[in-house]
């Protein structure tokens, strides 16, 4: 076992406690900051898109990974974010007012959903969030006067303080700035009572309640923060898509978000990051797959959702800790080399629940 010697409580409070972590994150942030120097416009926009999905993934991670509440409707918040922001911008509201206003609006809608969902579990919650998605999608489609309906809505140009951010590198920096803020904020939650209450509700509502956690309120808060963050991802997404239409924010998109956090690893911020990378590489894999597979299969309409479902099942069954779980094991291997033992991660079997279960 690796022992970390602690000299102060701050070591546990700081987000990055180990030197290795600190170096890795610094290098990564530096690489991201300098990306416009060595990436061309195409890859830069792909990278920006990846960041959008990191934010969306973190949004869903807060609700599903940290609070344990599954949502099949999170694409709705992407949609609410994208539309609300685009509509505000087209009315002449400045970016830095529209962004927080959109986050607030999306968050409030999330809290309303949370309020009605706070007493539901498992299957009922899944159905309720799915129903919510369908309602939002339909609403966007039918409310033609405001949203442009199924004909779509053209996203105004990214303008900040009177400057037009039309170059890809400028937009990329907006994406990066927002992403870093969201990651930092989420890490902050996890070292605060609010975030710990999420984990408590996820793992045991019974004992959380006995320690004074107001379960319903915590769920409403989690829905709120999660929806606000996902709404912010929607804002960024709008500027990448340039043209919004209700179908973009449907069940498939929701499934993609779930796929992300399951594959990346439920319950950690890193999981959302890995998941976003995975999902960004998926289209590449998909196009390769289309080339290899016979036409009858590759031309089938349902190939993508089927593949999503398939991957989710594979991960749930064989790698429940996701890619981030693998990554932790790999790091552990190097940190303890040559003393690594396979058994380090084997769960203690000595714990058995008592027979008297009542």
């Amino acid at each position, binding site marked *: 076992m690796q022992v970390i010697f602690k000299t102060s409580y701050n070591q546990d409070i700081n987000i990055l406690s180990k030197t290795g972590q600190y170096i890795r994150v610094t290098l990564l942030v530096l690489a991201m900051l300098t990306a416009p120097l060595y990436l061309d416009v195409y890859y830069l926009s792909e990278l920006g898109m990846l960041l959008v999905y990191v934010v969306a993934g973190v949004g869903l991670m807060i609700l599903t990974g940290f609070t344990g509440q599954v949502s099949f409707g999170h694409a709705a918040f992407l949609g609410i974010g994208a539309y609300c922001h685009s509509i505000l911008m087209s009315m002449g509201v400045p970016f830095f007012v529209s962004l927080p206003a959109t986050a607030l609006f999306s968050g409030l809608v999330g809290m309303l959903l949370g309020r009605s969902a706070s007493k539901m579990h498992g299957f009922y919650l899944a159905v309720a969030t799915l129903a919510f998605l369908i309602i939002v999608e339909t609403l966007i489609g039918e409310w033609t006067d405001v949203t442009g309906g199924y004909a779509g809505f053209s996203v105004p140009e990214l303008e900040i303080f009177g400057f037009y951010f039309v170059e890809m590198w400028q937009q990329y920096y907006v994406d990066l700035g927002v992403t870093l803020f969201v990651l930092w904020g989420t890490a902050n939650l996890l070292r605060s009572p609010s975030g710990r209450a999420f984990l408590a509700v996820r793992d045991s509502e019974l*004992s959380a309640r006995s320690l004074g956690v107001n*379960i319903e309120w915590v769920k409403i808060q989690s829905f709120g923060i999660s929806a606000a963050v996902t709404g912010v991802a929607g804002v960024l997404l709008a500027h990448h898509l340039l043209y919004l239409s209700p179908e973009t924010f449907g069940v498939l998109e929701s499934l993609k978000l779930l796929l992300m956090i399951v594959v990346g690893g439920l319950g950690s911020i890193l999981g959302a990051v890995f998941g976003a990378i995975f999902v960004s590489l998926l289209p590449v894999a998909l196009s390769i797959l289309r080339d290899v597979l016979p036409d009858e299969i590759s031309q089938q309409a349902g190939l993508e959702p089927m593949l999503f479902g398939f991957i989710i099942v594979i991960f749930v069954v064989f790698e429940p800790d996701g890619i981030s779980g693998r990554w932790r094991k790999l790091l552990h291997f190097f940190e303890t080399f040559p003393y690594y033992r396979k058994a380090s991660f084997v769960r203690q079997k000595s714990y058995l629940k008592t027979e008297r279960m009542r």
Partner: protein
Amino acid sequence: MSSLVVKNLAIEFGGVKAVDDVSFEVEQGETFAIIGPNGAGKSTIFNLISRIYEPSAGSIHYGEKNLLDVAPHRVIDTGIARTFQNIDLFEQATVLQNLLVGRHRRMSQNILRDFVFFAGCRAREREHRRKVEDVIDLMEIAHYRDQLISDLPYGARKNVELARALCAEPTLLLLDEPASGLNQEETDDVSFWLNDIKHDLGVTIVMVEHDMGLVGRVADRVLAINNGKFLSLGTPEEVRNDAAVQQAYLGTAA
């Protein structure tokens, strides 16, 4: 002075009277044990006190407070903390995180302030961490501090659960079978801790326990019930020798 007063408490589950007209009073600072065969209704009494179940009759008062007016998540605010018969920890969180949730009700919180870790958040964490470390020292679980609960052996989990309840700085502890599943050595540790908690922290303890050895060593008074009904109340010695109690345990002479 009586701190916990339970009067004519009753509840039924689909016609089965799990608790039937049970009354008892617990003095402040005393260690009070509830015994009885499996299915007697002991855990149900705890669940009634912590407001998980709604009684069909009777009343529960703690100090000035009528507990039946208190919402389940507010019970802890009256000073009552508890452990569960089947150990109910936050499995995918570390020991430290579990204990800090024990401080939950005492930590001011505002999710937006927490999100930006506003000035004061760090100081708040440090202050409560100090309290948690006191409990970690008392329960001798320092070496488990950063481990996930799911990686802990059974005995350690029991200690962590008791520690988590202590982190809430309760005035009354409800312990549901604190020694079940523990070996003799671990049970001895429990009896030391219970005495420490009683004498050093001045906490009133109500515990359900099958191990009569432990009950004899730590309890001031014992309540015996069977099939939800009152059997006997008195010192461990008196209850052990009560004919009705021996009858209930069917000759296994406690």
